[in-house]
């Protein structure tokens, strides 16, 4: 390797390592705070290596509160709403990307505009609607709301990814008539896997961590999600119960992380274009 190239490589690795440290440290700090003794948490200078740790707060959060139920609810609601938004949104994204039809631009802008209104204001009419439908404190309320919120993300992002794939690549599979469905499954879908994976991860994260509607539309451990449950450790005499709060924060990340690790190999280009020609 020539020296210039080597220099660039070293620089790149240096930047990446710094980025990793900046990214990981707060997460490490969260985990550490969950096992620290109370006195060590707010100490000046900060305690980086506590001499004594405890699992008492873990036990408090896991056994005396409804953490297991929150976990179950969050996972279920996020998974279902993500799958629904992908299934419903993908055809819409394809339509916007590939076909020219009157109103295309306006419909796309309408879909974008559903994200423009501040959520606090519409939370009250949505609360009332859910109450009339009897969906309050059930999974249905959040699934409906999250699917709708994620749809705009899915449609807009995926249509941009679909557009990246040149038409000739698709048309090469359309030798015998407009079997657009076939070309979709055989060509477009595999080639846009990185985009689909990215969007799936984003949808899961948004549904998992959403707070406002989760707190307004749920009440009991039947439907309460992790972000809402975590706030049961904030307030009151202790101000912030750091131990249990950080425990909930740490375990909340794990399933999403596992999911991302599992599918992230699809984040790279799957098939090469050359193989198709």
């Amino acid at each position, binding site marked *: 390797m020539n020296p210039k190239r080597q220099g660039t490589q070293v620089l790149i690795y240096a930047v990446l390592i710094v980025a990793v440290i900046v990214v990981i440290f707060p997460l490490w700090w969260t985990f550490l705070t969950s096992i620290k003794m109370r006195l060590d948490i707010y100490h000046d200078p900060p305690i980086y290596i506590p001499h004594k740790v405890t699992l008492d707060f873990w036990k408090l959060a896991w056994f005396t509160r409804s953490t297991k139920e929150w976990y179950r609810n969050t996972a279920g609601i996020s998974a279902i709403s993500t799958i629904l938004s992908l299934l419903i949104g993908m055809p*819409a994204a394809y339509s916007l990307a590939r076909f020219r039809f009157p109103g295309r631009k306006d419909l796309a802008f309408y879909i974008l505009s559903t994200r423009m209104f501040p959520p606090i204001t519409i939370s009250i009419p949505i609360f009332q609607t859910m109450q009339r439908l009897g969906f309050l404190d059930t999974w249905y309320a959040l699934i409906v709301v999250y699917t709708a919120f994620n749809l705009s993300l899915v449609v807009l992002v995926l249509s*941009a990814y679909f557009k990246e794939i040149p038409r000739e690549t698709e048309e090469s599979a359309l030798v015998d008539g407009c079997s657009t469905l076939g070309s979709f499954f055989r060509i477009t879908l595999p080639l846009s896997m990185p985009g689909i994976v990215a969007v799936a991860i984003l949808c899961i994260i948004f549904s998992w961590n959403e707070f406002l509607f989760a707190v307004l539309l749920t009440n009991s451990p039947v439907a309460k999600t992790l972000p809402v449950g975590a706030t049961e450790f904030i307030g009151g005499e202790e101000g912030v119960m750091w131990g249990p709060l950080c425990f909930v924060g740490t375990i909340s990340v794990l399933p999403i992380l596992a999911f991302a690790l599992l599918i992230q190999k699809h984040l790279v280009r799957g098939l090469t274009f050359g193989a198709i020609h």
Partner: protein
Amino acid sequence: MFDVRREGVEKDTFSPACLKTKGSFMKLKRFYPYFLLAPTLIILLGVTLYPFIYSVRLSFFSVPFGRIRYFAGLENYAELLQDPFFWNGIKNTGIIGGSALALEFFIGFTLALLLSRKIKLRSLFRAIFIIPMMLIPVVTALIWRLMFFPGGSVVSDAMRHLRLVTGDPNWIGQPTLARLMLIVMDVWAWTPFVFIILLAGLQGLPPEPLEAAEVDGANALQRFVHITLPLLKPIIVIALLLRGMDVIKFFDAIYAVTGGGPGSSTETISFYLYRIGFKSFKMGYTSAMSVIVFVIVFVLANYLLRKGFIIEE
């Protein structure tokens, strides 16, 4: 959707010829795109249309707490335009949100580019850089508060070791530092959003134009500016729009850490909305404010899409 003229690459939509039909049965095929869009539109309209209309209607009423509401016409809007907190909120949203967005873009793009190259442990890096988004926002906010809190601040400690500061910066008590603190929080948490979208975009690029340009003798920078960037434009625009609209809703960190202070220097429009709507329960006023925010975002997004990029029918 939003087409971009690209060099050397044909516009990639199917011409309506594909949809021209033979015979009356096939006439239905013209509505094919609408069928694909229908479920999405039905759900979106169902969930958002009534709340939107309800809120717009409510903005013309005055809803004093605990008493009967009455029709107030444009009174809420008039009051808003003279409300110093409203303009302060817009200003702070612009400063904090705008800076955060710019940084997220710059850092996210850089990381995406770096990780598109052949690097060892690429997949590990990729997974790590997505993680900050995954943490529950209120936990993120409180942990950063813990790390910034003067007197025991990890951040100040690190900065002292790097000789960037001496003494104990008053992150919570000084307006500039408080805003900086919030920007750091937002950038840490949301750069992964930009990163993952751009990374997927870079991965989805067809390699032929790049290879052809390399053969023609273009260097890395030229390839980047003339081929990569234009091809990525739809994705960049979308990432900017989505992240921009979300940054306006920036709330958790402000609630958990500064409460809008010191003074009112970190009160963004979303926090002011919360304060008026949820604490004072003035729903008419809140609705009017939301309508104005919506209009501003609508106009900005429209402008960005039309002027910045060539939209074709």
